[in-house]
């Protein structure tokens, strides 16, 4: 009776590798996610992530940019999952969202580049000086000060200021309300300011 098992395993493997059946799987998982099935949703997001990473790597070079883009796409998928109709294929829906996010990122990066001037050696007024070393020390102090914040404030400042998520994205990722995120960020900044000012006075 072991024979059927031997044939089933490759068949399942083949099915999972086949793009058409994989897309049907994703479509079913999204339909369940829309009904509130967290396990199906987690599985769907985990399964599409490598695929999104491939799409992102075609337009982004740095690994951190690729990962940012993937997270950006996942957040958008989450925000507009109600627009998916299980009667239609999942692939085009996902690719359209991914492409839009990637194009937005490229535009944003281009705008940032247009506003930036490359730092040349002649711009360096304090090469190898104490000032340059001080800046490194400030990074360490800032990291330590953020680490010392209460958990909620730490999470808010990381998502909104360090990872530069929007309020909506941070709210979706953390499950906290926008108002609560604003309050936490405000308090975190006030606390960091106090920490630095008191350090400077000393």
């Amino acid at each position, binding site marked *: 009776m072991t024979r059927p098992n031997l044939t089933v395993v490759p068949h399942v493997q083949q099915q999972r590798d086949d793009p058409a059946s994989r897309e049907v799987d994703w479509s079913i998982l999204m339909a369940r*996610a*829309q*009904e*509130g*099935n*967290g*396990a199906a*949703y*987690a599985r769907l*997001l*985990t399964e599409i*992530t490598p695929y999104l990473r491939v799409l992102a790597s075609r337009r982004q070079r740095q690994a*951190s940019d690729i*990962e*940012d883009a*993937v*997270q950006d796409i*996942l*957040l*958008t998928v*989450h*925000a*507009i*999952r*109600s*627009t*998916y*109709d*299980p009667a*239609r*294929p999942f*692939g*085009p*829906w*996902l*690719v*359209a*969202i991914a492409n*839009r*996010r990637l194009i937005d990122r490229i535009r*944003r990066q281009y*705008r940032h580049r247009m506003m930036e001037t490359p730092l040349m050696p002649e711009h360096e007024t304090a090469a190898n000086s104490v000032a340059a070393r001080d800046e490194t020390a400030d990074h360490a102090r800032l990291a330590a000060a953020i680490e010392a914040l209460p958990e909620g404030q730490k999470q808010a400042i*990381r*998502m*909104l200021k*360090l*990872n*530069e998520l*929007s*309020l*909506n994205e941070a709210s*979706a*990722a*953390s*499950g906290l309300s926008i108002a609560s995120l604003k309050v936490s960020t405000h308090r975190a900044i006030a606390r960091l300011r106090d920490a630095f000012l008191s350090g400077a006075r000393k």
Partner: protein
Amino acid sequence: MINTPDLIAALAAQPKPVRRLGSPMLRSLGWLAVAGLVLTVLAVSHKLRPDFGSRMQDTTFQLRLFASAATGVLALIAAFILSIPGRSRLWLLLPVPAALVWVANIGYQCLTNWVDIGPTGMTTGETADCFATLVIISLPLGLTTHMMLRHARHFATSSVAFMASLAISGVTAFAMTLFHALDASVLILSFNLVTTAVFIGAGLAFGAAVRR
């Protein structure tokens, strides 16, 4: 940076059921019901234009009336379809034939008569009345459109906004033709399309800042 598995865990940890969007056709019908309500209120307050019966004998008038309504309805369907990710951008062409017929029969009377200077002094002209009616019709339709298409801001802002403004323009022009003696098509199109262009431009310029 939060790592991706943590983000996925956070997103999947709040498995709230979501209500799927209705089909574009159903949503278009819902929007048209709101437009019908606005037109009914306007019909009660403004009454049909007195020469409506005689003007309906004129083929150009009929063409303009039906082409503007068809442009509005087809652009609306296109907007709802394009607001769903993954749908072909060829849907942008859906209102083109009706829009061409409308534009070919368009009038500009309302555009040029902002002020009347008569024996009693300077008063607001027909254009100002046209503009006021146009705002009264366009505003509720614009708000309804915004409510029904707000999910599209994540991915197809320009094409959906353009189709939606064409839809509002078409339906507004249809309504104005019923209630106003002068043809306001150019004024309506200018108002809606320029407003949309301003919003899209502002969105592109400040969108990133607003999202933060």
